């Protein structure tokens, strides 16, 4: 991202709460104008801390955050003009929905007629036009969520932060809200920084996803890149399902490596992504949908025999667990179509995959 386009810039941000451990380690991140950036990671990975630093509720221990190229480390939260949707909505229980929405306009001294107009517009945007007089306690979870979104947008901020906003909703509602938030983002041209630990939510909504682990951004890329081309074993494991083998590089030829899987069960040809030279250890990562069952002999560089251990019927595909190369947790997704021979548990078949679908990554722990 070219930096003149960026709305938010984290420069060398470090954060410690207790002076002993760093929660965020040397964070550098640009968020472009109009971008939907998701911070994804397991709990305790530092993503919420980053969001709180951006909102101004936590001071950065080191480094500087820029908003529109202005350093904001010393700007108090109420002067940052950043919208935020909190985890539990944080609606004011003693005010009606309309009063909640009018609050940010009121403290900005916007006169009453315009206030009403903008409140109504925001309510209409989230399809809650008739709910202005209700109290937050009288709303369902989804409605409260929408009010929270509307309130964060009603004062027209350039940047909106969302801290796991859909965590409390049930699955159907969550998916529906994902689309709604995405559409609002597109329609208003907002910049959104979104925090979640739910990878499918991140994949659905984002322009870019920053995967956090251990206070470090492991990879920051658009969803397809992140899924197809994970840079390291953590990202490969965290986003989507993957089969992994651990072994040692024995041969190297351009961007192709041969890795001997531990316990001498075989050698796999893989794409060199994030691994040292010959002799270094590596984790191989392979998506379940990239595996072919019963390939033509010689058509694929990697063909091994596998023992079907377990078949789970999932309608559109059959999830099959094989024992391959001594690993009994090798998952293959077999499309449910007439051309595929139907396997039975206990069958032994050949399975194979391409070298470029199998990524040789750093050795994970």
């Amino acid at each position, binding site marked *: 991202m070219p930096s003149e386009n960026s709305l938010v810039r984290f420069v060398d941000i470090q954060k410690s709460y207790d002076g002993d451990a760093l929660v965020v380690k040397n964070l550098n991140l640009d968020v472009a104008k109009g971008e939907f950036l998701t911070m994804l990671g397991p709990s305790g990975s530092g993503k919420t801390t980053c969001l709180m630093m951006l909102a101004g509720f936590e001071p950065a221990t080191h480094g500087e955050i820029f908003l529109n190229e202005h350093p904001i480390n010393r700007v*108090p939260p*109420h002067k940052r003009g950043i919208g935020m949707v909190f985890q539990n909505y944080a609606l004011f229980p003693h005010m009606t929905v309309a009063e909640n929405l009018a609050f940010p306009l009121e403290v900005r001294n916007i006169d009453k007629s315009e206030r009403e107009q903008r409140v109504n517009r925001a309510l209409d945007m989230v399809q809650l036009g008739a709910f202005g007089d209700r109290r937050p306690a009288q709303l369902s979870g989804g409605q409260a969520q929408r009010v929270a979104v509307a309130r964060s947008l009603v004062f027209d901020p350039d940047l909106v932060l969302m801290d796991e906003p859909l965590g409390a909703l049930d699955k159907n509602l969550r998916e529906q809200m994902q689309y709604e938030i995405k559409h609002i983002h597109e329609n208003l041209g907002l910049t959104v920084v979104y925090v979640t630990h739910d990878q499918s939510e991140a994949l659905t909504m984002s322009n870019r996803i920053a995967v956090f682990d251990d206070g470090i951004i492991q990879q920051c890329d658009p969803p397809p890149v992140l899924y197809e081309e994970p840079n390291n074993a953590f990202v490969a494991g965290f986003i989507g399902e993957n089969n992994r083998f651990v072994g040692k590089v024995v041969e190297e030829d351009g961007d192709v490596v041969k890795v001997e899987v531990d316990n001498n069960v075989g050698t796999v040809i893989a794409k060199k992504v994030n691994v040292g030279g010959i002799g270094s250890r590596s984790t191989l990562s392979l998506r379940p949908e990239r595996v072919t069952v019963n390939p033509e002999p010689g058509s694929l560089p990697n063909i091994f025999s596998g023992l079907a251990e377990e078949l789970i019927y999932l309608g559109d595909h059959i999830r099959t667990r094989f024992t391959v190369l001594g690993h009994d947790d090798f998952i293959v997704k077999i499309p449910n179509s007439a051309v595929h021979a139907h396997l039975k548990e206990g069958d032994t078949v050949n399975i194979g995959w391409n070298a470029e679908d199998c990524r040789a990554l750093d050795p994970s722990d």
Partner: protein
Amino acid sequence: MSTAPATIDGPLLTADGVPLKASLEKSLRRSKLRALLLVAPPLLFLIFLFVIPIGNMLTRSVDDKLINNVLPQTFEAFEAWDKESEPSEAMFEALYNDLKSAEKTDIGKASVRMNYALPGWRSLVKRTARKIKKMEPPYKEAFVKADDRWLDNTYWLSLGIMKDKRTLGYYWNAIDRTYDFDKNVIHQPDERKVYNLLWWRTILVSILVTIACLILAYPVAYLLATLPMRISNLLMICVLMPFWTSLLVRIVAWMIMLQQNGVVNDTLVAAGIISDDNRLAMMYNFNGTIIVMTQILLPFMILPIYSVMKTIPPSLMKAAQNLGATPTLAFIRVYMPQTIPGIGAGCILVFIVAIGYYITPELVGGKDGRLIGNMVAYHMQRSLNWGLAAAMGTILLGVILLFYWVYDKIIGIDNMKMG
């Protein structure tokens, strides 16, 4: 659909033809009985130790039966009297008969009651009663011989105040009013006016103590609710410690602190803030009552406010600031309104306890720090004017209910959170 058990108009029946209502009743009877058993002990406790005593207090405050039972004939003769001429022989005879037939202790009690209506009655009745055995008709002369005040019509006229079996006299007394002989309500003479001042002072003290408690408690409760657990637990112990200490010990501690040669005055003199002959009078007066009562009642304010604050999610303050409110504005617009149920509960608790307070004003109040509670105690224990004490108690109860009603109108009892 099998055989439909009920017609459209008839009552719903269960499968075996019993009306549904009866069947439901039967199935719930056991659980209702159990609930009743569980609630019985507190209910009995409430009836015996709350409802009956209060009922007794209410009846006592208007009761005037005793005198009517002791002097029935006298009151009859009194009714026949024209209230202007000299008391007649018939009246004296009636009085003689009454005094002769009455128990001695009843005469004593009656004379005390009569003394409330008109001072002097007690000695008059006592002196007369002592000689009653030797009296012979004509009784008028015998009575006048025993005490010549019997010729004074005022004593006889004052019987008019006592002739009914129910009286509001104690209530009027409690607010510095009394009956004249025709049962009109009049002001007490100035030298006998004491209670109105005490009523106003009691309400003033209660309000001042409530306000002082609120001002002191709010920040403490806020700290308790927001500090990290380890520190807030320590603070909570500091709040509760005085609560666990004997009331008397605390009051004595305050005496040591606040008296003329107490710690506070000594410190101020030593620091040169006040001169030695200008020591502050903080004890045995109005100030002492306020200071000590505030300290004693403070936990009653802190705890309800704290319990409400504890339930306010910290994210609300963050949200308010994020939406553009300064921390102060966020506190006033978002935090404070949500603590109102706690403030209301704390205020009403402190006010109700304060308005009936007795021991603290007794010990540190001195002359101008006494409250109505002390008067109730005085009439219960010293003057034995239980009717007046009961009337005062009833008025206190009424004032509390009045404030409770006002509170309900303004804030709503449903919003109250005791913690």
